[in-house]
């Protein structure tokens, strides 16, 4: 009698399902779901790691570099307090584009903005002021250390270029010297940062990651990503009207894109 009670109900249900209204509703729902999935997929593809970040200390020349790469002209700049981004055509032959993102270098803002954009980074250009480097070496190394031990950066291992800017000034240090000094400083920082008191919520400040290999002195070749050093000058040695000296940087961008 139970089965008998159910049968007419099942019949009614089957009849309903075959009805045109319900079927069309079902098809519509499936279409919406598929569109949604395709949209998410395309979004993900489009924004996945096509960004090149310009990082560095305050007054390193990131915004001017950004302006030069995109428009070729010299612009006056002020301290950035927010990020700027634009599409950059890497070379005239290839049609690949990358999104150049210029992040502020000020101490209170830099980590926040790095958090926001680090997941999308395909490559990182770390701009260093070669003239003030001697004075700022500890701050440069600290910021570079914070970038390198970040878990997302370690996971994605974006290519890293350290651009030694302001080479038009005679007192600028060479890229080789900057590399040596940074390696020495990062070597010391490994020890002091991991010895710092643990953070309030338990996570260590230096991160569980150890930079480079233990036991050996720190070397940029020990990092999981490719690191290169290049000299450049955003202002250009021929004054503001002339061209900027960005060959090395542009070649690297072509390689990376």
């Amino acid at each position: 009698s139970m089965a008998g009670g159910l049968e007419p109900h099942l019949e009614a249900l089957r009849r309903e399902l075959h009805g045109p209204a319900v079927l069309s509703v079902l098809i519509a729902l499936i279409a919406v779901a598929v569109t949604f999935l395709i949209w998410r997929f395309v979004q993900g593809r489009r924004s996945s790691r096509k960004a090149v970040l310009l990082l560095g200390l305050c007054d390193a020349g990131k915004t001017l570099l950004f302006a030069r790469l995109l428009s070729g002209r010299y612009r006056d700049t002020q301290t950035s307090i927010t990020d700027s981004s634009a599409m950059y055509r890497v070379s005239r032959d290839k049609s690949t584009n990358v999104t150049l993102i210029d992040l502020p270098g000020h101490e209170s803002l830099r980590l926040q903005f790095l958090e926001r954009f680090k997941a999308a980074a395909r490559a990182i250009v770390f701009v260093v002021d070669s003239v003030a480097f001697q004075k700022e070496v500890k701050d440069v190394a600290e910021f570079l250390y914070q970038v390198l031990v970040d878990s997302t950066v370690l996971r994605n291992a974006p290519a890293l270029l350290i651009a030694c800017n302001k080479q038009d000034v005679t007192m600028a240090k060479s890229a080789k010297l900057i590399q040596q000094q940074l390696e020495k400083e990062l070597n010391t920082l490994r020890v002091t940062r991991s010895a710092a008191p643990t953070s309030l919520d338990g996570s260590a400040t230096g991160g569980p990651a150890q930079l480079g290999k233990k036991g050996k002195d720190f070397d940029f070749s020990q990092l999981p990503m490719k690191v290169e050093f290049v000299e450049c000058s955003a202002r250009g040695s021929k004054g503001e009207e002339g061209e900027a000296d960005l060959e090395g940087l542009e070649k690297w961008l072509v390689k990376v894109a």
Partner: protein
Amino acid sequence: MLDFFTIFSKGGLVLWCFQGGSDRDEGMMGAAGTPILTAPLLQERGGNNSFTHEALTLKYKLDNQFELVFVVGFQKILTLTYVDKLIDDVHKEFRDKYRNEFQQKGALGLLNGTFDFKDDFMRLLRDAEESSKVRAPTVMKTFEQSLKSQKTVKCMIETRGEKPKEKVKNKKNKGSKKDGTEAVAAPSKASAGDKQLSAAGEKEELTKDEILQKNREEFFRRHMKAGEKSRSPKPDAQKEKGKKPRVWDLGNSNAKVLDYSNSATNGSAEACPVEEFDPDMALGDKNREPGRLYDLEYESDDEAEEEKVVQNPSKASVKKGGLGGMFGMLKGLVGSKSLTREDMDPVLEKMKDHLIAKNVAAEIAVQLCESVAKKLEGKVMGTFTTVTSTVKQALQEALVQILQPQRRVDVLRDVMDAQRHRRPYVVTFCGVNGVGKSTNLAKISFWLIENGFSVLIAACDTFRAGAVEQLRTHTRRLNALHPPESHGGRTMVQLYEKGYGKDAAGIAMEAISYARNQGFDVVLVDTAGRMQDNAPLMTALAKLIAVNAPDLVLFVGEALVGNEAVDQLVKFNKALADHSMAQTPRLIDGIVLTKFDTIDDKVGAAISMTYITSKPIVFVGTGQTYCDLRSLNAKAVVAALMKA
């Protein structure tokens, strides 16, 4: 005259610049290292839109929709009235003229566009200057025009006993002085009263004498009751008649009369009458169990009432909105709605109260909310974001920004540097009484010893009883934990003390030179706790710091402090700045936040302290054992702060 005017994007590109002054303003544009124009925005002091830098006053305006900043600079000594209007006009015109460039995607519009704004700007400037000059200077009235010439001389003469109306006016304006020589003062007062008369209005001129009479009577009446000072001629006259000795009520009687105690009554029961004793009234509650202590009854009715009261006005406003409100809400959810002040105000009020409830100092919460409002005004919201979420997001970013250190926080690195130069690294601890200076000093020395640095503790607290003994106990314990044998025969921690009552600055200087001779890596100087209002003690502290030039001046503050934090830090910094001889005075370099384990999630003191000084929190103390030393995690603190 305007010295300069500049328009730049928040991303850093200068779009247009005008320099009316001399070329010395080059410093503004090419500021090396320290950002001058954007400093207030970075420090979240954006509530007040004008700030000074050297000899210039700078005013700025934000356009949050297109991410632009407009800054105008003029000489501090001038007060130009047309500046605000000029900025607004320039903003509107610039935005309208270059709307196309701004609406292009990304920064390409800004990079490729040419912003030739000079002619428009000069025109606007000329208009603004002229509009401020429109009002002709007021011409002084001639004597014939004034009211004084119309008064008769008679009514201005004052005779004793008469209180003319002018005096009443003077009292009202608090200009009254005690008048011993009334006759001399009278004419001057009369003239002063006259000016007020003429200012008061026309109708009083008509029936002046009548009004004078009326007011005189009223004045009499009032002063009969009060017995005021201005009647001093009369009481003065009375007193001079003859001095009578004052009679006290009980003055002439002797002690016996005053002694009301009856020595015979103590102990005997008959002396005092038996009073009517009502046990019910004395005991009160009849139903209580004898001997039991009841709990405090908690009334939660007040809270429910408050909630009802709060809900009613909001319900009323919802009803008023009705259909329009529905559409507004829908429009707000989808599409581009730009934020206005009215939208943000209720949310900001709530956030401000929330911050204050979390122990952020009240004035800082207000300033923070103002700054966030300025940053968000006019901003276009994205789809599916509500006003609340936008404001909360902006406030969260602002809080993280405040807590990020503006200088490096790496004590070990600096100690290593000093080690290389063969000099000790000197750290001074200062703060008010009872915040935990000595305890945290011991914790920090433990941490330094663990990292292999030898420490000399200088006991410069020569005032508080037991301060030296406390440090000696810590030294003994630390040496027991890290005996010299495990560190190559070197004593890792030693105490330098000279007992009590001596000059703290002198002891510090001797301790530093002792450390240099003996090769200690770090010197930790413990000072006495002092209230920020105590001027001589603050001077002594400033002298200690100015004379010894420590590498790090740490202010120790407890996390329990509320609005006091602002006062403490401001006064400490001021004292250090005032008493320093140097060009750039040594101020507080960092903060140690103690007793962090006692606050639950009311972590607002961290925000208050870093906001006031712009210096980082170097250490956080979370207990009384040697391992209870932490470093600050900005994200965790902000999360605790924003938690509901």
